[in-house]
């Protein structure tokens, strides 16, 4: 069986609907002038024209996830004895993320290393990840701030996706990449993809050529540790940052979390929720001491984690997929790609003009 297919434009809606009949399908939907991933339903307005404002990371790594519920009760015979019941729900339905971008898909590969490829895999992440197929749309354009090719990706990069779809003039070219992808292609009852490959490749290449490379490194940016350790550098570059967490919550590769017990009287839940290194409390210790009290140190950590510490730990892989959301949606237009390019070894100066 060929691993490619073609779906004419008029059958596109039916294709998605068919997938939704067999799995929970998350699709980018228009909500006001914002695009967000929501479970598919017929009354949603789907939007594939531009990447979603927030990546689909919450499908596999929910913003808040109940690990278990607990209930304290007292023994009526012996009121001093307190009992606790725990209830855990590990139920992960079959899911498809439909219409993510190559950068979004790559984000999950960054998560896989700490969450799955360890001696103690995370059951919540692993459970959802294994049940989820990722159907990616190749980008038809570049978007403000994006730089995927500079961090090893591309607007039609297949890494991390199960299926890659490229929109053509009169239909969609589908490439199944993994076994999960082949299953989806089979289900789609698509026409043969033969004959459409050249058009798809041409479209993909045309966009690739337009993606900016802020690092001009022909590969991966190499960071100067001297500059990285310079307080003046961060103070100069980050004065404008307001230390909100938009960049971390919109980032397809940010995976930090907090665990809290949210209790009302005798009942409660232990939840795991997103957290971000841009917040003061992220490193606040119980003693009251905070090793990262300023926004400069926090942003330094954010850049460090993505471009230094993660690559050091995982064979040089940069934990940034270049989606550009942190730049595009930053209230103050802080540009991580500009900061990293200034940090590169060959630059060597903290104040090279703009």
């Amino acid at each position: 069986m060929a691993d490619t297919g073609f779906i004419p434009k008029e059958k596109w809606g039916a294709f998605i609907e068919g997938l939704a009949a067999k799995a929970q399908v998350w699709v980018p939907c228009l909500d006001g002038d914002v695009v967000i991933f929501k479970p598919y339903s017929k009354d949603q307005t789907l939007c594939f024209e531009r990447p979603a404002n927030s990546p689909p990371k919450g499908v596999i790594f929910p913003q808040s996830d109940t690990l278990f519920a607990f209930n304290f009760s007292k023994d009526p015979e012996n009121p001093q004895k307190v009992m606790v019941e725990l209830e855990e729900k590990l139920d992960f339905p079959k899911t498809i993320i439909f219409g993510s971008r190559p950068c979004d898909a790559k984000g999950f590969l960054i998560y896989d290393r700490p969450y799955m490829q360890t001696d103690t895999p995370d059951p919540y992440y692993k459970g959802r990840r294994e049940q989820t197929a990722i159907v990616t749309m190749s980008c038809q354009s570049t978007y403000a701030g994006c730089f995927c090719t500079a961090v090893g990706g591309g607007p039609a990069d297949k890494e991390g996706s199960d299926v890659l779809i490229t929109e053509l003039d009169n239909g969609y070219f589908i490439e199944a990449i993994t076994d999960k992808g082949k299953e989806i292609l089979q289900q789609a009852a698509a026409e043969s993809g033969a004959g459409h490959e050249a058009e798809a490749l041409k479209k993909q290449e045309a966009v690739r050529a337009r993606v900016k490379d802020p690092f001009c490194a022909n590969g991966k940016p190499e960071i100067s540790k001297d500059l990285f350790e310079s307080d003046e550098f961060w103070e100069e570059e980050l004065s404008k940052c307001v230390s909100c967490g938009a960049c971390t919550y919109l980032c397809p590769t940010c995976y930090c979390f907090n665990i809290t017990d949210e209790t009302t009287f005798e009942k409660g839940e232990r939840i795991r929720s997103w957290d971000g290194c841009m917040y003061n409390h992220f490193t606040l210790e119980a003693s009251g001491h905070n090793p990262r009290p300023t926004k400069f140190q926090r942003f330094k950590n954010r850049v460090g984690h993505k471009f230094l510490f993660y690559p050091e730990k995982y064979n040089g892989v940069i934990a940034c997929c270049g989606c550009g959301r942190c730049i595009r949606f930053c209230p103050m237009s802080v540009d991580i790609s500009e900061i990293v390019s200034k940090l590169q070894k060959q630059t060597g100066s903290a104040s090279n003009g703009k």
Partner: protein
Amino acid sequence: MSLDKLKQIITDVMKEVDVVIGYKQGFDPLHATPCFITKPEQVDQVIWNPLCVQNLASYLTSLKKKVGVIVKGCDSRTIVQFMQEGLIDRSKVVVIGIPCTGVVSVRKVLEKVKHEPIEEVKFSDDGMVIVKTPSGETKMALSEVAPDKCETCQYPTPVLYDHLAGEPITSTKDPQSVFKDIEEFDKKSLEEKKAYWEKEFDRCIRCYACRNACPMCVCQDSCIAESREPHWVSQKSNLTEKMMFHMIHALHLAGRCVECGECERACPMGIPVNKLKRKINSDMKVLFGYEPGVKPEDKPPMFTFSVEEKNIEEHKL
């Protein structure tokens, strides 16, 4: 206003301060970004045009140094409010005011050009914005793509300044219509309003961009949204918690919000958070005849107390 004059003022102000906060071109032709000028050679980076949207006065409370700051009319109210609340030492701030004829809403421009990559942005003298994308040039009136706050702007010239770059401008906008949108919205039924806000707040990702971009949100790192003791809001990501956070945010700004609109502009999910604050401001005006950030000698109504409030019936025993 000439850019040369602004640069001259900055150069002069730099002699008496440690840093001047202005604007420079951002990561693409549609974005400006704040710049902190500490060296004379950085003055040349400064720009001034309708892309200069950020409220630079927001940084004042976190800076210990002597600061020069560029403000538009709306931003200048922040400084006045800081003074009313005793949050800044006025002697450490040099205010460079710019009479402003309106800024752009990046979201509105992107909507107009169908979110295509921006190649060039130009502004004509007759109030047009010309945006170039791969599919060509789109011409739009600045008034069409200005944020809502510009439509009813009463203070195009800063209400307070030490240096003014340009000639003062008087507002031509009807002062009676400032809260027209709020009055319209108020006509909706309670159920309609509830449905509206539930739909909007459902998108919130609790990134706190609205809070951190807000010049008047002075609690910042001690915000109730994250504190565990007291534990007002849980970390669950559901509508109840999101709404709770936004309601507290709005109420903490009662009689304090200067309507710079930074909260709404900062929101990556396009939630009209400023509407809540404007609703409260419209009530403050009716109840206390008070408008935040206009006169340095005013006292914010929530900072004071009268046994008999003139416009609050319930107070009369």
